[in-house]
């Protein structure tokens, strides 16, 4: 879409767009280009000598068991966060949509975790799951589960998954509720008259009509689990115990700032960029299709 009415000026549009361009170039493109370039270099530990090695860093990376393990952790983590998070939010949204008169109250009561910083969410759950003083850990012990996320990798993973889902519930809930409320009531009434019960209506009408929202949220949640959960991992477990919760974005940070394995950290950044670009392209192709609806 283009405007018919425009203004003419030789310099003004450049001046208007300059601040955005300056920040984009200095803080986005320059670092990203450096990432690409440095990922092809090997540096000794003191930064004195560098050598151009083509794709050796990447070859090393995909032969490195620790990195492959981190890939697996990321896959399990993102899968659990996306699937469980979406299922719980969908259930709550469908029920809130049913009790239409009280929907607003439930919305208000479920909306606020959006405002909580991921790192703060992590600290709250860290406290609840703390093996000596956490209340949830205490309940779990009552059920005979020897709970200790500081030593047990699976327990630590469960803890960060719970924190990540908790933080994201309000976002998913809001979008699901909006999607449900935009489904024409006449379709559902027609099905009800034909004798379809609530479950059948959900399976055959509501869920298929909701699929654009679901797909959109699926991509958003995967991106969230890949990137934005950094704060949760860092504040709750620091990637441990061992490597049990070390997701890819955390490993970039750990190798670059703590391990000082620069070449590898740059190469990992490039791999993450490729994954993220793929996900964003998928997301936007879908948005284009939604416009035609």
């Amino acid at each position, binding site marked *: 879409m283009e405007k018919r009415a425009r203004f003419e000026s030789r310099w003004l549009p450049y001046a208007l767009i300059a601040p955005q361009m300056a920040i984009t170039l200095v803080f986005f493109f320059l670092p990203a280009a450096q990432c690409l370039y440095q990922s092809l270099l090997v540096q000794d530990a003191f930064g004195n000598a560098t050598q151009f090695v083509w794709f050796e860093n990447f070859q090393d990376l995909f032969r490195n068991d620790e990195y492959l393990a981190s890939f697996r952790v990321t896959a399990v983590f993102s899968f659990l966060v996306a699937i469980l998070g979406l299922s719980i939010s969908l259930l709550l949204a469908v029920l809130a949509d049913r009790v239409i008169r009280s929907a607003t109250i439930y919305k208000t009561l*479920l909306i606020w975790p959006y405002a909580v910083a991921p790192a703060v969410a992590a600290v709250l759950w860290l406290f609840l799951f703390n093996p000596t003083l956490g209340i949830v850990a205490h309940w779990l012990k009552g059920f005979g589960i020897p709970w200790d996320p500081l030593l047990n990798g699976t327990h630590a993973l469960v803890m960060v998954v719970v924190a990540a889902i908790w933080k994201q519930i309000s976002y998913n809930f*809001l979008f699901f509720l909006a999607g449900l409320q935009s489904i024409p009531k006449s379709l559902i009434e027609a099905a009800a008259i034909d004798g379809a019960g609530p479950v059948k209506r959900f399976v055959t009408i509501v869920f298929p009509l909701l699929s654009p929202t679901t797909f959109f949220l699926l991509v958003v949640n995967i991106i969230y689990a890949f990137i934005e959960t950094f704060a949760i991992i860092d504040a709750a477990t620091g990637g441990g115990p061992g490597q049990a919760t070390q997701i890819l974005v955390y490993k970039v940070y750990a190798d670059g700032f703590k391990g000082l394995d620069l070449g590898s950290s740059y190469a990992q950044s490039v791999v993450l960029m490729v994954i993220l670009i793929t996900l*964003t392209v998928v997301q936007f192709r879908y948005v284009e299709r939604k416009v035609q609806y």
Partner: protein
Amino acid sequence: MIENRPILTFFSHLILVIGVALVALPVYVTFVASSLAVDEVLQSPMPMLPGSHLIENYTKVLSQGASTNVTTAPVGHMMFNSLVSALVIAIGKITISLLSAFAIVYFRFRFRTLAFWMIFVTLMLPVEVRILPTFKVVSDLHMLDTYAGLTVPLIASATATFLFRQFFLTIPDELAEAARIDGAGPMRFFWDVVVPLSRPSIAALFLILFIFGWNQYLWPLLVTTDESMYTTVIGIKRMIAGGEAATEWNLVMATAMLAMLPPALLVLLTQKWFVKGLVDTEK
């Protein structure tokens, strides 16, 4: 309601109430913990009803910070840092996005498409995937431990630019033509027509961006080493870094409540605007 199924309605409410309770549980426990004395928090299980040290704990963290074992700046100062960075990030993002969207929509100039695509690509390059080189750029510019370092690198915004572009395209062409006939230049048109018309979008976006700025984690973690520059979220992380024995959980939890309060209040008080902002930015 399509049909009357009282049992199903009852179960709907039941599950929703359980859901709301589970979502609220961590914050309730945090609140209770923040009102206890340090030896009460260390009991297992800890009490589930608020104690009597509420005001004492909050005054202590606000004015002195936690704690005896790990030194941090007063939380009051951290909250000031959070407020400054959240405001600068939100206002900065809105300002430069308004200007660039105005340029892209109302002018035809060389490199217009290139500029548009460059802004788009920033969506795919969050700080998390280019940690080291971005840190290096900021450190070379001597912006570590400054408010500028905390905020400026986060100010570019593709989502805000697209949102404003989308909105500007819906402004009737007649308004721009009328302004031109009346002899108004582009900047006059921008201030007197475009900005006032954009006010609802600006308000909704401000809420989202303020929360985004307040809740930043990775970036302040990298660029602040001086404790007087810590934001509240980073402060909490530093308070628990001393290890199990050194952590005074009642004070940490009071700080966590203070970190949550401003953005949560903002969301609850402006719910309608907030939901609009959230849905619009994702379109």
